[in-house]
């Protein structure tokens, strides 16, 4: 009689313990399945091929001026209008959200690849972007890198070998475990939008065109004044060696093109003064000296803020100009180009 409670006690003790063990085992199984299964998807992705049509288009245009940059360039220079004003052919290769890594690929694999390289190349940037070791300022687009890379020159390896941040390393490790997480091409539609477009009878291209024409920069609302905090990532001497700038200069030299580096100014402060901290001003001086030593033209648009040619009302946000000022900026730039050409002629 005395042993019975012990048996009951043992039974009641054993059950929760077994149950607990099986719950833990199930939890481990749950975590393993959730982590391992997605890693098996997407391992067969094929890299996009080099886009030869970009080379052919530039070749056909017989461009005198080629502009390279991102949306800052797009909101400032209208290449067709510039061609009209200067009687020369201007072509813009601007791609939104891109940075020097992509610009180097464009210069080496598109501009330098044509038979008649343009005599003048302009690269637009802001703050210290020209010496930053990055490919994109916005969402990453590995497919764009693939389309701009010739497999024989392994440009992707060149870009990957540059200094990577901790965040980049973590992201790369994550993507190597889960290839499905690789960022999609900016030109690729989200599958859900694609299904919806298909239902309405749009092809992907028609849909992309409709989206672009409806939400073009020309239709964007004005927004409240933004005073941009200028971006600064370290002194010029610390960043130049690991940047793409020396290779950009070398590539332009190889095709005997005049390279002009244009730094656009951030939106001025409320007082109309240049938005330029001392650290960035020092960086700009060093950059200017470096470019001068390498026979590269340099235009710093901060001077045009000081002279009042460009003011805060022309800005859409911290860096981009309002669409209605694109033409006047293009005129302004054309005037500078013509004056500069005259000066060169006089000097010669």
């Amino acid at each position: 009689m005395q042993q019975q409670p012990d048996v009951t006690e043992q039974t009641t003790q054993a059950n929760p313990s077994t149950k607990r063990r099986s719950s833990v085992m199930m939890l481990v199984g749950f975590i393993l399945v959730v982590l391992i299964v997605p890693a098996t998807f997407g391992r067969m992705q094929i890299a996009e091929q080099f886009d030869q049509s970009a080379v052919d288009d530039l070749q056909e245009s017989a461009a005198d001026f080629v502009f390279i940059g991102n949306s800052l360039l797009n909101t400032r220079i209208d290449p067709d209008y510039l061609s009209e004003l200067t009687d020369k052919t201007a072509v813009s290769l601007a791609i939104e959200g891109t940075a020097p890594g992509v610009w180097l690929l464009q210069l080496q694999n598109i501009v330098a690849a044509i038979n008649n390289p343009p005599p003048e190349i302009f690269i637009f940037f802001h703050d210290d972007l020209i010496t930053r070791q990055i490919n994109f300022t916005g969402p990453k687009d590995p497919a764009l890198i693939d389309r701009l890379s010739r497999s024989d020159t392994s440009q992707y390896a060149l870009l990957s070998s540059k200094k990577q941040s901790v965040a980049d390393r973590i992201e790369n490790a994550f993507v190597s475990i889960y290839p499905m997480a690789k960022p999609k091409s900016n030109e690729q539609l989200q599958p859900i939008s694609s299904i919806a477009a298909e239902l309405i009878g749009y092809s992907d291209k028609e849909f992309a065109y409709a989206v672009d024409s409806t939400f073009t920069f020309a239709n964007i609302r004005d927004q409240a004044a933004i005073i941009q905090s200028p971006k600064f990532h370290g002194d010029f001497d610390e960043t130049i060696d690991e940047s793409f700038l020396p290779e950009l200069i070398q590539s332009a030299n190889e095709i005997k093109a005049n390279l002009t580096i244009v730094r656009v100014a951030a939106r001025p402060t409320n007082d109309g003064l240049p938005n330029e901290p001392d650290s960035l001003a020092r960086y700009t001086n060093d950059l200017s000296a470096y470019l001068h030593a390498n026979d590269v033209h340099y235009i710093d648009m901060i001077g045009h803020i000081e002279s009042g040619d460009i003011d805060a009302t022309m800005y859409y946000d911290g860096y981009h100009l309002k669409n209605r000022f694109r033409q006047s900026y293009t005129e302004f730039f054309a005037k500078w180009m013509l004056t500069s050409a005259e000066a060169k002629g006089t000097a010669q």
Partner: protein
Amino acid sequence: MLLIAVFTGYWFVTRRLQNLLLLVASYLFYSFIDPKMAILLGAYTAVNYIAARRIESDRNNSRKYLWIAITASLGALAFFKYAGFFVESISDVLDTIGIANFESTLKIILPVGISFYTFQSLGYVIDVYTNRTFARRSLIDTALFISFFPQLVAGPIERASVLLPQFERRRSFDANLTASGISLIAWGFFKKLVIADNVGMIVDNVFSTNQPGAPMLWVGVFAFGVQILADFSGYTDIARGSARLLGIELSLNFRHPWLAASPADFWRRWHITLSTWLRDYVYIPLGGNRKGRYNLAINLIVTFVLGGLWHGAAWNFVLWGLLNAALILTCRAASLFRVKVHTLPATLITFIVISANWLLFREGDLSYIGDNIADSSGDFKLALVFGITVLIYSLPIWIHAVIDLTRVADIWERNDVSRMVTLTALTLTSFIAILALRADTSTEFIYFRF
């Protein structure tokens, strides 16, 4: 990372150390957002802790201590959240009547989550005053109640009677609770990264366009309704899931609001912890529905306007609150005339009306709304594609609601094995969908700005 670090050490220490670990983690978390704001959080804790203790120990002067706590908490909230709005409004009025014209340069940084922890800490002091709970001796437990990191920045707004007792007992590891927490986190991230962020890109495109035209504008409004639900309920699920990993059960904040059959029903399903807070601490103390129809209407309007202002210091939020009160009052008036609508059409009408009402929440420029609300220009076909896209993105939320409604979930709740298999399938699906369908750019949670 913080959650994983806490989770690892959490189960091997005593209850007091568990709470201390959570408190340190909570302040580290808040300091990481902005170190200065952690001092503000500490000040809130000190004021409300002392006030609650004094209210209980000195009942004769309890009203005085209650008002000190209310004034200090709401004063800080008013300063950080509303000072700029009032200065700007006064400036506009003076400018309009030609007395003065000055440009406001008052720029005050809004501490993240201040609206949430102000209400949570005030609720505690009021509950102590009304004897719904007792003042805690432990400063650590009280501080943790106000700062618990999974729900600090965007709720749910917890009650002392729900959260504090959980901190007052030792939590031990529970594999089932951990699995359900992970699953809830995955579901929350799915709602945020796949639904809210993708739909949010459509919303941003529409509302950044100068002249979208009425069809596109209404698609944008519908999309915003989907975005804000997926965004906010996604955050809540992540918060609730994270808390479950630590053995804490937070309150439900959403109960399928799209199934609401009336505006009043919607507010019983949407941001439940704010709605019940306003009901218990504003509407009922004002008299609720006890003092006749006229007072009921006034009380409802006051409560909803305050609810609107809680979201932000702007006139569109005031109008949004007024419109919500008007909708509820209209439905009450209709019921007086015995107007009855079948549940399904009532749900559909409520969904449309509430969706339309989000326009005032999303867009602060009333002249922009006026210019576009009936403008028939714009690309109708493109608007239709966006509308269908948003509808497809919203399907998982509808399916979740229908599953709960039809109690299909009961089948897999039968035993541990079926529950774990279901959780595995749901979590796996969410994770794969996040990897494959997440938006290119992720934005901050909408309710972080409140």
